């Protein structure tokens, strides 16, 4: 109870982060679970509500900000990372989240997302990957599997999907993680890891769209299969699922059907070379979840702030009159 927030004393509770707006997702949508986890997690940041901002694009997922009682902007399709960049860079005192979808963030908005990550702008990006366009009623997305039959691809899609983790690692992202909508504990742990660092954090969250792409991640959730279908990555621990271990292969990493294999690779989330995280990102069934990469890098806003300070130190605070006059004047009497 050291700080107050508009009369709401810290520590805050989940309720403090719940807005008065009716949630309008379909009943059963995975977005509900994510919302609830995020609302529960936010108080742990110890940041006053008014210093938290959620910026989103367009999509079912992008309705998220309406439901969180902080500052928020539901912007336009794909542009949230760009908008958040301007906000985060000019207001380093704020904690800025971006909420986006696989269409919003990887189709129309792919470029902004990747540039924000290479710059290491001080934003936490939550990408809700349901492998479908929800809001426009079910076309395939850049993460839909090859051959997917949807409204716009009645004979199956022809595009090899992006692997979002590989993609952002190729774009120099320094914090990269994956979690699952309904795994509250795991998602909270990843959010917490992201909060501990400066600069960009990218978190892919597998999210179920029960209307247009139901059960896309069911094997990773089902108590019967989930331990075999996921590799829960922990820094410093061996990489394995219930039935396999990850070992080194000639071209990268590979799986062996032996959960106790002696050469199981030890996870190193702090490897400076992103090649290790990249190799991990290529594994699937079982699929790694948790933090792929977490290496420190100065954030963009801090670098910019430092330049402003340095300029003032070297040249003094700007003086408008002398700026306007310049060096080459003459006087008419």
């Amino acid at each position: 109870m050291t700080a107050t927030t508009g009369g709401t004393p810290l520590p805050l509770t989940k309720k403090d982060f719940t807005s008065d707006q009716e949630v309008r997702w379909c009943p059963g949508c995975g977005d509900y679970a994510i919302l609830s986890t995020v609302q529960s997690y936010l108080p742990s940041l110890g940041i006053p509500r008014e210093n938290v901002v959620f910026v989103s694009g367009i999509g079912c997922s992008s309705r998220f900000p309406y439901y969180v009682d902080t500052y928020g902007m539901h912007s336009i399709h794909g542009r949230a990372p760009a908008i958040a960049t301007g906000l985060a860079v000019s207001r380093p005192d704020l904690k800025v989240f971006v909420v986006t979808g696989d269409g919003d963030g990887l189709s129309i908005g792919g470029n902004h997302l990747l540039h924000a990550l290479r710059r290491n702008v001080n934003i936490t990006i939550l990408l809700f990957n349901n492998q479908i366009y929800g809001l426009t009623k079910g076309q395939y997305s850049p993460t839909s599997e090859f051959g997917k039959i949807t409204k716009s691809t009645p004979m199956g899609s022809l595009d090899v999907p992006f692997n979002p983790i590989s993609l952002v690692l190729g774009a120099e992202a320094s914090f990269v993680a994956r979690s699952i909508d309904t795994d509250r504990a795991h998602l909270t742990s990843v959010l917490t890891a992201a909060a501990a660092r400066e600069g960009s954090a990218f978190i892919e969250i597998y999210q179920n769209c029960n209307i247009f792409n139901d059960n896309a991640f069911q094997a990773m959730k089902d108590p019967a299969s989930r331990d075999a279908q996921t590799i829960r990555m922990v820094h410093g621990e061996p990489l394995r699922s219930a039935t396999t271990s990850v070992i080194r292969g000639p071209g990268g990493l590979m799986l062996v059907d032996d959960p106790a294999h002696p050469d199981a690779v030890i996870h190193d989330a702090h490897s400076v070379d992103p090649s290790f995280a990249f190799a991990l990102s290529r594994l699937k069934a079982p699929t790694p979840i948790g933090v792929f990469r977490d290496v420190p890098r100065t954030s963009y806003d801090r670098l910019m702030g430092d330049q402003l300070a340095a300029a003032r130190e070297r040249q003094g605070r700007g003086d408008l009159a002398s700026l306007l006059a310049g060096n080459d004047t003459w006087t008419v009497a």
Partner: protein
Amino acid sequence: MTTRDKPVEKVSRVVIRFAGDSGDGMQVAGDRFVAETATLGNDLSTLPDFPAEIRAPAGTLPGVSAFQVQFADTQVMTPGDRPDVLVAMNPAALKSQLPLLARGGNIVLNIDELTRRNLARVGYDVDPRTDGTLDPYVVHEVPITTLTVGAVAKTGLGRKDAERCKNFFALGLMSWLYHRPTAGTLAYIDTKFADQPQVCAANRAAFEAGWSFGETTEIFAVSYQVAPATMAPGTYRNISGNVALAYGLVAASERSGLPLFLGSYPITPASDILHTLSALKRFGVRTFQAEDEIAGIGAALGAAFGGAIGVTTTSGPGVALKTETIGLAVSLELPLVIVDVQRGGPSTGLPTKTEQADLLQAVLGRNGESPVPVVAPRSPADCFHAAIEAVRIAVTYRTPVFLLSDGYLANGSEPWLIPDPAGLPIINPDFATEPNGDNGAFLPYARHPDTLARPWALPGTPGLEHRIGGLEKADVTGDISYDPANHDRMVRLRAAKVEGIARSIPPLAVEDPSGAATVLVLGWGSTYGPIAAACAQLRAAGCQVAQAHLRHLAPFPANTGEVLRGYDKVLIPEMNLGQLALLVRAKFLVDAVGYNQVRGLPFSATELAEAISALLEEDQ
């Protein structure tokens, strides 16, 4: 460099044009000539004119780069219609620029470059000195290359580098011819080449050689003096439109207490605003070179949400890309300034040339009913004040605002009476700091009764947490609303807010010294100079004509209709096919006539005067 043995003639007004290869340094020569001319107290106006390629191959027509300046002992409104002197550094420059010269015009011709190969390259089968091509002109043949190389020899610079000094030779010669002071240029050379003493010495030598050449040879019988213009007392500097615009934004930042944030993607002819602002970090200015135009404006809008003056700078193709985000800003009702330095279109068009054909895009070019105020400067220096006005409107009314400059204003320059910062308008951001609804509720779309502006509540303000977005919002609360009546109301409220800006702007002023004119010439933007010059010419010739110039294109000043209806005829000269004319005709049902040229160049005052006088005759 001050002895003068030759006769001196006084003239009132001179137009000079330097032309050479893109690599010949013509822009530098022009800039220096202007700097000296300015300090001498002449009024002046400039027009840099260069190709879209960085450095097209030497000696080709597309590679020609030119710089024109008009200076006088009276007011100067334009860079001049036809050069009195053309400095042509090679055959390409000669051939491409010749059509601009009037009969009897002077050509200072670098004869060293008139080789058969160079001539053939630009399509001269024979030397144009020999086949009558140049008969209508007064040609001064100068072996500029040879003389430069000779003068520079003593510095030991290699031939190729020595030749690169020839722009300073030409500058020296023109400085002699028009009695320009030389100290500033010598100082400029010293600073610029401080790291390369040999190059420094060489350029000094070339410059002095050019000056002496004028003084000692028979090429020019006389030299000319242009007396200082009578200008309002005060301290002046020369300033280009892009720099003035950047300074205006900084001034608005200082006068509002809001930090300036520029989100931009480089594009000709707007990039220099980004360059200028990126060097002003000591003013707390943040410049962000984004990955594209959409990210540039997106970041500016994000910064505006956080309480900055969000600005984005671009040209027409960039505006096209920003369109969707401008619509979002209209819906969010946040301050934002979109600077469009117009260039030749459509599409990539003529990137380095000027045009006024983005007006309708700015006023009407968005999906949905999406009103945006539009402000346009009238001269390079006026970009400063127009920028402040754009910020004032944006902040006061919480709206995106277009600032429509163009390529001519951007790169052109003129003397500027440096304003006292304390006299500049104060802009009040009037942030929301307290709940404005019942029970401590914050209503982000409750409007100010006068301006209809909504509250601007910054993240970080406790108790005012709220969410905004691009879906239609319920009046007052800002919650998402699909209610038909609410949508209709919100559409009209947004329109009314922008229309209401008219109450905060000065009425449209008419210049009609006789008070008896029946024809009004209405303009906007950079055509101010040529129109004013044309009207002045006509009045000098005894004609009566009125001039009015719009700074606000949306909304129009409240008295605009009244003014227009006061004349028999309204002529609207535009560097487009009639865009202001369309708006004026639609709104006021006045049969305004266009005078339209889409040549990538500013109007010639003389041609404009002819067009006006044709209309005057019709009206009799």
